[in-house]
């Protein structure tokens, strides 16, 4: 019974998301675009989290992607679509080189290093004025699709689809087993012959690639990049809170979390211009204290309690301890 449904729901959701521009006005569409942007970032963050490594550097690779896209258009003369791909590849390549070194760090040392790296990227771009435009930032001469909002929305949706596809691939393949084995007990994972480092590197590079692409799309959509705008800590904070609220270690959680928090944030922003993000902080604290498995996890455990089918126990493994 559950099998066909589990295929049907994502497909229906995708169809609904794809058709949204045909029925909605410009404002809801802009909100949806920002929700999808954060959704892709939240999914990419979660992909690395499944190995137990917490990155606080989402904004770093996002910003790097935005600048890579801007500079490849302004200085390299690339077409907009190509520049977005380039942004992803560039962020992925930087992650590959850095990952060779920093993925040997564990726990809080890794987290702080990612945070410091994001700061380093920002400082480099801010001070290398000749090439990057410095603190004033860069402005593109024209937007992708001439700024047409429906096409832009579909572009962001495409990034989300890529993120979901990569994330699902991670979940269905051996990588999931390897990553959760590393998370649960690294030593025993290594002892069972799992090439820990290889899998960590793949997860880090793919998640940074997605963050770079999203950064590139964001830049092409707004046509403007400055160090303060693209390395804004919100790009780390919001995806993190969304994934946590929805439920970590799986694709559906970040999707649900991004929908709920993204839409809620829009309403709050209208009513409380300063400090509406306080809600995010409080949600993070409450979720960790009272609902560490997130909304989707809660939903699942409810369902498991009603029908404890043997098949479900395999799924439960994905949720860790």
């Amino acid at each position, binding site marked *: 019974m559950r099998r066909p449904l589990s295929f049907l729901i994502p497909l229906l959701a995708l169809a609904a998301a794809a058709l949204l521009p045909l029925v909605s006005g410009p404002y809801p569409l802009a909100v949806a675009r920002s929700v999808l942007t954060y959704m892709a970032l939240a999914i990419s963050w979660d992909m690395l989290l499944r190995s137990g490594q917490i990155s606080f550097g989402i904004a770093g690779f996002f910003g790097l992607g935005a600048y890579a896209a801007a500079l490849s258009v302004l200085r390299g003369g690339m077409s907009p679509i190509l520049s977005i791909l380039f942004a992803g590849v560039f962020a992925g390549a930087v992650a590959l080189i850095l990952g060779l070194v920093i993925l040997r*760090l564990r726990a809080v040392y890794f987290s702080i290093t990612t945070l410091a790296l994001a700061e380093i990227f920002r*400082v480099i771009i801010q001070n290398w004025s000749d090439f990057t435009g410095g603190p004033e930032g860069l402005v593109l001469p024209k937007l992708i699709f001439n700024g047409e909002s429906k096409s832009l929305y579909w572009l962001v949706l495409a990034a989300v689809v890529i993120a979901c596809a990569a994330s699902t691939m991670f979940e269905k393949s051996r990588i999931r087993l390897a990553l959760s084995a590393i998370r649960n007990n690294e030593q025993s994972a290594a002892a069972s012959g799992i090439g820990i480092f290889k899998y960590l590197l793949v997860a880090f590079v793919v998640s940074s690639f997605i963050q770079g692409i999203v950064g590139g799309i964001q830049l092409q959509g707004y046509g403007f990049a400055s160090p303060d705008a693209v390395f804004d800590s919100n790009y780390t904070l919001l995806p993190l809170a969304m994934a946590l609220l929805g439920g970590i270690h799986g694709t559906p959680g970040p999707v649900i979390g991004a929908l709920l928090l993204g839409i809620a944030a829009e309403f709050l922003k209208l009513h409380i211009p300063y400090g509406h993000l306080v809600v*995010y902080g409080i949600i993070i*604290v409450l979720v960790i204290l009272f609902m560490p498995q997130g909304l989707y996890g809660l939903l699942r455990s409810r369902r498991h309690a009603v029908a404890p089918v043997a098949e479900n126990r395999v799924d439960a493994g994905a949720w860790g301890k």
Partner: protein
Amino acid sequence: MAVKRSTILWAAVVAAAVVLILLWKPTVLVYGVQRAGLYAAVAIPMALVLGIVHIVNLAHGELMMVAAYLAYFVANRLLGLDPFVAMVPVALVMAAFGWLIYKATIKHALKAPELNQLILTFGLAIAFSQIANLAFTSQSFKLSLSYVSASATIGDVSFGVFDFVYVAVAVLLAVGLRLFLQRTRMGKAALAVGQNPRGAAIVGINVDRTYGIIFSIAVGLMGIVGSLFLTKQAIFPGVGGPYTMKSFCLVAMAGVGNIVGVLYCSLALGLSEAVINGIRGYAGWSNIVFFAIIIATILVRSYRERKR
């Protein structure tokens, strides 16, 4: 022996650097030491918490921000107290606040995976800075006190002397905490809990209470640091964030539990930042030196630990 030799080596390197800086720009040395004092004063309470409660408190800098706002709005605006007087009541209020935070949140995450603790304190950090944003907007506030511009002249070099307050506070905190941990009953109990909570519990130490007290002492000390921070710096909701990161980096460099080591590491970083700042046109790069050194140290440390 090996430890001693490396200590001598380090001392020689630092001494050589100091002499070189003195010959080049003496003021850089002064500002480097002052900067180091501020970094160390902020980082030492975090070292205490990390060494004993084993929690990386990502809301550390934000607690300093909260203390500075308290010192500004309640103590200075409302009661007309100078920050140097205000630091006593602010420290007491902050200590009570720290106790509350411990009881309400951190206590419940102690047994959870490290991920949860990190994200929990990250959430607290956001909540604090955003509440400040909500209440006072992102506008920055600054006191204008006449004594902060006190200066001294040695030979033909003149420099501001007020910031040596931070150096004094940092040294006092380090020495005071060391005495507290080694001489008092409570401190010894805390050290025992930090080394082995289960063992400490077996010999009859109330582990939960010790954690609570240590956390609350650390937050109380942030009350002092925050009040002093207000004397010279402008405060705004995001002012604490960078200090969280820098404090953690210093603590990681010094090694968990090594409070006095934080002083040396701050000195090394303060000086190197001041040197970069002193080179014309490169002031913007000083942050990168900080983070590059930090990343290098963390890496070296982790590789060395792995080899063992």
